[in-house]
């Protein structure tokens, strides 16, 4: 066992030999500006928890902690709070070369919890967290870049709910990450304002990519396959931040999401039926365009209100500030094909014929409010409008005619690049 102080000192000395910036000096105080050169560099040691945690505690604003290639054995959650503009990055040849291995973790709920503005995590792998993976909460402009996170046992109920989890943040960037095995969402962006989720790969999870109770979110160029549901855009009750508004999902590839739902009992996502390509629930102003949603066992694109969950799933909620309806969805110029031929029980209740359409809307709208769903230019995609509670009770009241929804809504603007 190396004494913590000794480990830190060795680490620091090592850094001096590796980095032109050494450990930083008063001359190169960065005043909060983001740098990516290494200020502190660590390597795997006999006591990786101490090595990494002490290095994190010792950082000052604007510094970068670099992790040399190798596997770091972590028995305890790492945490960092209150230091803005910090980057933690692997410096191996690829993210696979730097592994934070939590297989033997016994302490802490998550692998790495962060509460600090302008935090960046990049170029490394997080393996087998005991609970959730990397959680960044209540922070401004967090970045997850080129991070792999996975559970080596595969898709198991015992796995943590989320691998990459920014919540209650502003200006989130999640890009070029790959996640496998979460028992809720591989990649989650929740209760946040403004977020970009792009070029990620998500597979082997209950939900591939989830945007929840957030405002102004752009999800694009992602690929999600072999999940129970490829992508979820959702407004849920009883959360601190209310409403899911202005999600712009485009150019994603959501395919073969047929993994049996393995969420733990009691989790909301337990109710998400296997085989769903993209599910939008109770969101306001959603644009879904130029996506490929193909060969999912259930409907490719499903749009529902909370009311449907109440009726079909027996869910209840008691949040006075909750908006339960799907409002204003614009589904256009997608390729949605080959979906709906391998229905699980939940969908079979809706589709007793055994097959489902590519695009599904439950048809539930607030009373006195005209339908605000547009479905246009989606190639040969088939469509079904359940027509609300009428159609749920009597399938003859449902319709597969998409022409009433041949309308156009204003496009959501692309979000600007953040200065992370």
């Amino acid at each position, binding site marked *: 066992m190396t004494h913590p102080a000794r480990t*830190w000192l060795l680490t620091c000395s090592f850094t001096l030999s590796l980095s032109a910036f050494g*450990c930083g000096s008063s001359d190169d105080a960065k005043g909060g500006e983001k740098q990516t050169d290494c200020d502190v560099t660590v390597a795997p040691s006999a006591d990786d928890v101490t090595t990494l945690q002490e290095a994190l*505690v*010792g950082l000052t604003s604007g510094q970068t902690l670099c992790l040399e290639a190798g596997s770091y054995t972590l028995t305890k959650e790492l945490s960092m*709070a*209150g230091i*803005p503009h910090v980057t933690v990055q692997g410096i191996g040849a690829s993210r696979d070369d730097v592994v934070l291995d939590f297989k033997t973790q016994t302490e*802490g709920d998550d692998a790495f919890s962060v509460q600090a503005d302008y935090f960046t995590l990049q170029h490394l792998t997080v393996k087998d967290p005991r609970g959730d993976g990397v959680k960044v909460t*209540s922070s401004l402009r967090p970045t997850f870049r080129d991070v792999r996170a996975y559970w080596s046992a595969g898709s198991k109920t015992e796995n943590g709910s*989320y691998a990459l989890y920014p919540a209650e943040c502003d200006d989130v960037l999640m890009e070029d990450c790959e996640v496998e095995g979460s028992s809720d969402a591989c990649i989650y962006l929740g209760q946040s304002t403004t977020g970009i989720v792009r070029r990620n790969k998500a597979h082997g999870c209950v939900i591939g990519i989830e945007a929840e109770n957030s405002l102004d979110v752009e999800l694009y160029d992602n690929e999600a396959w072999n999940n129970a549901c490829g992508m979820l855009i959702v407004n849920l009750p009883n959360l601190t931040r209310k409403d899911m508004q202005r999600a712009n999902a485009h150019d994603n590839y959501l395919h073969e999401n047929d993994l049996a739902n393995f969420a733990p009992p009691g989790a909301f996502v337990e109710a998400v039926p296997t085989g769903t390509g993209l599910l939008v629930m109770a969101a306001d102003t959603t644009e879904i365009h130029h996506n490929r949603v193909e060969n999912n066992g259930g409907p490719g694109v499903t749009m529902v209100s909370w009311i449907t969950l109440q009726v079909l799933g027996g869910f209840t909620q008691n949040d006075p500030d909750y908006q339960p309806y799907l409002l204003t969805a614009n589904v256009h110029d997608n390729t949605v094909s080959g979906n709906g031929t391998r229905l699980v029980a939940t969908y079979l209740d809706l589709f007793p014929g055994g097959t489902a359409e590519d695009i599904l809307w439950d048809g539930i709208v607030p009373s006195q409010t005209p339908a605000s769903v547009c479905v246009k230019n989606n190639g040969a995609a088939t469509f079904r409008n359940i027509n609300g509670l009428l159609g749920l009770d009597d399938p003859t009241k449902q319709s597969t005619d998409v022409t009433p929804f041949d309308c156009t809504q204003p496009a959501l603007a692309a979000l600007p690049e953040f200065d992370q």
Partner: protein
Amino acid sequence: MRRTRVALAGALLIAGCGGAPEPEAGAPRLPWAREAMPEVPLPSGAVQTPEAVELGRLLFYDPVLSGDGTLSCATCHSEYWGLGDGLTLAIGKGGSDLAGPGRQGPALRRNSITLWNAAYAEHLFWDGRAASLEDQIRFPLESAEELDLAPSAAAARVAAVPEYAARFGGVFAEGVSVRTLEGALAAFVRSLTTTRSAYDRYVAGDEGTLDAGAKDGLFAFARAGCAGCHVPPRFDADRYFARGVGQGADPGRFDVTGDEADRGAFRVPTLRNVVNTGPYFHDGSVETLAAAVDHEADQADVSVGSADRAAITRFLQKALLDESQSPARPAAVPSGLTMPRDGFRIVR
């Protein structure tokens, strides 16, 4: 222990690598004396080992300590809600199944005060009626409206759970007793400290941890006189004041001292993690942090303009936030009872 490590790392940074500026030369400006968070005071005889903290953590979440087996300490002091409960007034025995904001049931007379940094308080509760962490634990236990279980009965119940008996035996020579029950819970609460906030980093010499807005707020906080009561670095005080909150029905500190000067006076709570500890004041009557700042600013000796109020709010939100030592909720507790479910936070 943890604080020692933080201090050590900081010292090494300066001595070993020459990284941080000397506090005296070119250190970030402060409107008051530079002072880091102190060590947690330990009463004589207290056992503050990791094993004691872990034992206390299990007890904290375990409904074995409630008469009807449904409530735990975490019902009213949840890590989800700033170690309070998110309610205006606490709801104890007879409440609905779910904990958290929206919980229904007979309200107690006061807001659940946060446990963050309770380790430092000379007296506990809004009225300061408990003289130590060990002492305070019997109040909710004995209250017929709260846990409603005599301490001796609680100890007997705990002793009957083999895992507890073994754990207590490993920590305390005398095994399970009322005294060691209090000791274990106190050890856990002493671990709930905040020492890594942006403000702490700033005090340690890292100027960049506070952005311009928070820095403005720091100085506005001082100008408005807030620090006279919410004394840094703890941003609280073992003092009691009447701040014009509520209708005066609650005697507050008077109940403890019998001094008319204390009528309607309540403890100066910590402002660390205050962004997550609302609703505010002893009666939870102020819902938002901005409104709480307004309430106090209206009573300041100097005029506090809207820009300063906004800056103070930002300082409190950003600079004093540190939940890195937030406790982990156990997956199960040794009694096998069902832990109170926080129904106002989606299972995740």
